[in-house]
C-alpha cells in the first residue's frame, strides 16, 4: 500500500509540475491544483498510513491515525483553496486586461523580432545566431 500511495503522490507531482511549466495561465493553474493535491497527500502521508483508525476517539479503537498531519492538511487545503480562488480571478482579470492568456501576458512572438526588454528599454535586433538563447517560450 505504501508504494501505491507514494507513487500516486509522485504521479500527482509529475503531472502537476508538467502542467505548471506550460505557457498558458489556465493550464498553470490546473498544474498548481494538481500540485496542491499532491502536496496535501504528501503531508498527510507523513503521519504514516493507517486503515480503519480515524482519529475520532472511541472505545473500540486500539490506536488512531496521526491526527496532526490531518489537521495540517486541512489547513493547507483551505489555504490552497483561497489561493486558487484568487489566482483564478487573477488570470481571468489579466486575460481581460492584456488580451492573452499566455503566462507572460502576450502571445509569443518570433524570437528574432525585436521586442523591448522587461524594463521597457528597446532590445537590439537579435542576430539569427542567438535566436535559441532568447527564444524558448511556449
Amino acid at each position, binding site marked *: *500500500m505504501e508504494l501505491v500511495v507514494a507513487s500516486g503522490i509522485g504521479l500527482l507531482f509529475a503531472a502537476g509540475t508538467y502542467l505548471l511549466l506550460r505557457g498558458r495561465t489556465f493550464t498553470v493553474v490546473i498544474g498548481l491544483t494538481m500540485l496542491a493535491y499532491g502536496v496535501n497527500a504528501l503531508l498527510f502521508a507523513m*503521519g504514516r498510513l*493507517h486503515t480503519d483508525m480515524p482519529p475520532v476517539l472511541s472505545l473500540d479503537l486500539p490506536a488512531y491515525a496521526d491526527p496532526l498531519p490531518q489537521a495540517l492538511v486541512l489547513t493547507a487545503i483551505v489555504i490552497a483553496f483561497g489561493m*486558487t*480562488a484568487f489566482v483564478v480571478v487573477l488570470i481571468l482579470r489579466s486575460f481581460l486586461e492584456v488580451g492573452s492568456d499566455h503566462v507572460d501576458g502576450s502571445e509569443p512572438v518570433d524570437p528574432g523580432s525585436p521586442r523591448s526588454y522587461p524594463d521597457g528599454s528597446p532590445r537590439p535586433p537579435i542576430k539569427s545566431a542567438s535566436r535559441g538563447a532568447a527564444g524558448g517560450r*511556449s
Partner: protein
Amino acid sequence: MQLALIVLLPFVGAVLPALMIRAGRNACATATFTVTLTAFLILLAHGPRVFAGEVVQYRLEWLPSLGLDVNFFLDGYGFLFAGLILFIGLLIITYARFYLAKEDPMGRFMAFLLLFQGAMVGIVLSDNILLLLIFWELTSLTSFLLIGYWSHLPAGRQGARMALIVTGSGGLSLIAGMLLLGHIAGSYDISVIITRAEVIQASPYYIPALLLVLGGCFTKSAQFPFHFWLPHAMAAPTPVSAYLHSATMVKAGIFLLGRLWPALSGTDAWFYIVATTGLATMVIGAWIALFKDDLKGLLAHSTVSHLGLVTFLFGIGTPFAALAGVFHIINHATFKAALFMNAGIIDHEAGTRDIKRLGGLVHLMPISATMAFVAALSMAGIPPLNGFLSKEFMLEAASETAWFGLGFDPTVAIIATIGAVFSVAYSLRYIIHVYLGPKRKDYPAKPHDPPFGMWAPPAVLVVLVVLIGLFPNTVAGPLLATSAGAVIGAELPYYSLSLWHGFTPALFMSIFAVVAGYFLLTRHADAITLRERFWRPEAKALFDTSVEAVVGWARTGTWALQNGSLQRYLAALTGMALLGGFATYLAAPGAPGTEPMLPVPALALVGWLLLAASCAAIVLLHRQRLFTLVLVGVIGVIVSLGFLYLSAPDLALTQISVEVVTIILLLLALNFLPKSTPVESPLPMKVRDGVIAGLAGIGVTGVVYAVLTREFSSISEFHLANAYEGGGGTNVVNVILVDFRGIDTYGEIIVLGIAAICIVALLDTVMQGASGRRIANWEVDMKRSADRHPLLLVVGTRVMLAFALVVGAYIFLRGHNEPGGGFIAGLVVSIALIMQYMASGFAWAQRRAGLDYHNVIGWGVLVAGLTGVGSWLFDYPFLTSWFDYFTLPIVGTFELASAIAFDVGVFLCVVGSVMLALARLSRVGRIAEHLDVPERDMDVDPRDVPDGNVAAEAPSASPAAAK
C-alpha cells in the same frame, strides 16, 4: 573636542552658504570663508602643541564592536595637511567668489566645497582607518559633485563620473586593505598601526593588504596606470581644479602613503611597487604634459607627474626620501595652486585655455605673468624657488637609489633626470608659449589682469614660493621637521634646507635637466612628431569603451537571464528544488526503511489506475480545457476516497467540498478564457519539462516511500491524549484545528477573507481600461443554449435548499466530536446557496439570499478573533478554549464550548468568502452578456403560459413579461 570641531565645522557650515546665498554672493562667500577661517584658526591654535611634538587626540566611541570610532589625532603630518587644506581653501574661496559667473549657483558651489573640505580634513585628522575610509569615500562623493558642478557640460558629467568610478573603486580596494591591515595590526587606530610595522610586515596578509591599500592610494593620487581620470576632472570650474589637484583630493592618496609609511614601507615589495609606480608616473605624466595644449590639461598632467614624484620618494623607503616627499608636498601645493588659479585667470580673461591660441600675454597681463613666471619656474625646479629645493632632494634620493641592488646602479637616477627634463620643458612652455612672444590679435576675449580679489589668492602663494625658496629654514623648516618627523616616526635624517649643497650629483642632474628641458622645448614640434609615432592609448576612450562594454555585458547577461518568461523562471525554481532535494538526499547518509507495509487491496489498485490514467490524460490532453476540469474532478474524487480509506474522514470531506467550489470558480473563469490551448511548446521544451516533471515524480515517490517505511512517533500522542479532557472533543483533528492549533485556523480563515477581498479589488476595476473595452466587445465564443434556468433544476434545488442547510448545521455542530466542523459546514452551506444561484440566476437568488458577503467576512474575522481575545478576560492566552457540560431539564446534558464560537467565525468567513468570490466573478459574466437578464426564478413557469399556442402572440401579452 576641538579637533572634532575642525572636521565638523565645514560639514555643519555647509548649510550656511546654501542659506546665505539668498543674501547675495558676497554674503555667501563670506560665510564660507568664515567657516573655513574658524576651522583654520582652531587648527593654528593647536600649532604650538604640535610643534612641541605633542600629539593632540580626540576619541569618541562610535561602533566599538567593529573598531570604528571617532578618533582624531593631530600630529605634525596631520597639521601640515590640515593647514594646507584650510589655508588653500581660504584662497580658493576668495578666488571663486570672483571667478564664478553670475548664473552659476554659488550657494551650491560653496556648500559642496565645504563638504569636500570637511571630508579632506577628516581624512588627515583621522586616527581610525575605518573613520578615515568614511572620509575617503566622502571626498570621492563630494568631488563628484564639484567636478560635475557644470552639469550642462558633457565633459563635466563624464569627468565627474570617471573620477567617481576610478577613485571609488580605489576606495573599495582600500576598504579591503584597511580591514586586512586592521586585522593584522589588531587595531584600527592609526596611532597603533604605525607602531606595529614588524607584526604587519611579517604577516602573510601583508602583501594583499599592501596591494589593496596601494590600490586606494594610487587611484586617488592618479598614479600610473590610473592617472587618466585626473585630466578629465579638469572640466570642473578652475577653483575646483586648483583645490582638488594641488592640495587636496589627489593629495589624499599621497597623504595615506605617508601616514602608513612607518607601518608598510621598508620592504622590497613596498619599494618595487611604490617607487616604480611613482617613477613611471612622474615620467609619463611629465611627457604627456609636454604635449597638452590645454593649460589645465598641462597642469593636470604635471600634477600627475609631481604626485608620481612624491610617490617615488615615499617608495624609496628611506627617511630622507620620505622627508623629501613631505617637503615636495608643501612646495607643490603652493606653486600648483597658484598656477591653476593663473590658468583660470587666463581662461577667464582671454577666453581660452588653448596654448595654441595664446602667447604674448605678458604685455597685457603683467601681474598674472609675473606670478606665472615665478610659479612655473618653481615647478621647473629653478633656483631660488622652493620647487628647486625639493627637486634637488628628489634627485639626490634618486641618485642614491639602486634599482637592482647593485653597487653602481644609475637606472633610477637616469629615469628621474629624464622626468625632470620633461618637467622643465613643460614648465617653460607655460611661460614661453603663453606669456612670451608677440602679442596676438585673435584672442577670443580682451585679456587684461583680473580684479584684485582674483589675483590676490595666487599672489599669496607665489610669495610663499619665493619665501620658502629663499628662506627655507625660517619659513618651512619647523613645519617640515614636525610633519616629516611625524611620518618617519623616528629620528629625522640629516638634511640641509639650502639652495647650495655643493657639487653633488643632484646638482649636475638638475643642471642637465634645465638645459635639456629648454632644448626640448625648442624642438617641441619635433617632439610632437616623435610622439605621433608611438601608439598612445586614448585613456578616456578606453575607459568609456570599457564602461560601456561592462554595461553592455550587464544588459546582455541580465536580460538573457531575466527574459520575462515565467516558464523559464518556474523551470529554474523547480529545477533548483530538484537539485537541492536530490543532491542533499543522495549526499546525506540514509538507509531504506524497515517497517512492514500495509497490504494492497485490489480496489486500491483500481484507484491507483484511475489516478494514473487521469494524470496521464491531463498531461496529454490538457489542451481541451473543459475536459481537463473534468479530470481534475476525477482526481479530486480519488484523492478524497484515498483519504477516506486511510482514516482521514475530515480530509475527505474537506477535499471533496473544496474541489467542487474550485471547479465552479474555474468554470466561471473559463467562460471568458479560450476554451482550448494552442500547440506551442517546442519539442526541446517539452522534453525539458518532461524531465523536470519526471524527476519531481520520482523524487517525491522515493522520499514518500522512504518515510512511509520507517517507524515514527510524533507529538500528536499528546493531542490524542488530551483532546477530550483538555479540548472537549472527540474528533481530535477538529480539536487540533480549533484548539491546539487554533491560531493556524485563524490564519487560514484570514487567508480566505483576504482572497475574497482581493478578488473584489481585482474585479472592481474590471470595467475600466482595456479590460472594460474587452468585456464591452466580448462575443460569446461558444454555441449557447437558449434556456438559462431549466425548470427541473429550479424545483430540485428549492427542495434541496432547506435540507442542505440542515446538513450544514449538522456538520457544523458535530464537528467537534465527529468529522465535520465550521469549515466544511461553511462549504456545504455555500454549495447549497450556489445551487440556488445556478438554478435561478444570480440576481434573483442574491436578492433572496439577502446577505452582504462583505459583512459576513468581517463578522467572521471579528467573531473568531474576539472569541480568542475573550480568554484575556480570564487572563488566559489568546484562543484559550473553554468548555463545560450542562444539564437542562428535557434537553439533557449538552456541551458548550468557546471552540464553537470560534468555529462560527470560521463558518462565517468561509461562507462570506466563497460567496463573495463567486458573486463578483459571476457578475463579470452578466456584465459581458449585454443582455438584460430577466430577474425571475425559472425560464418559464408553465402556469403562466395559457393553454393553446399563445407564444405566437405579442411577447408583452405574457403575464411574466407584463410584470
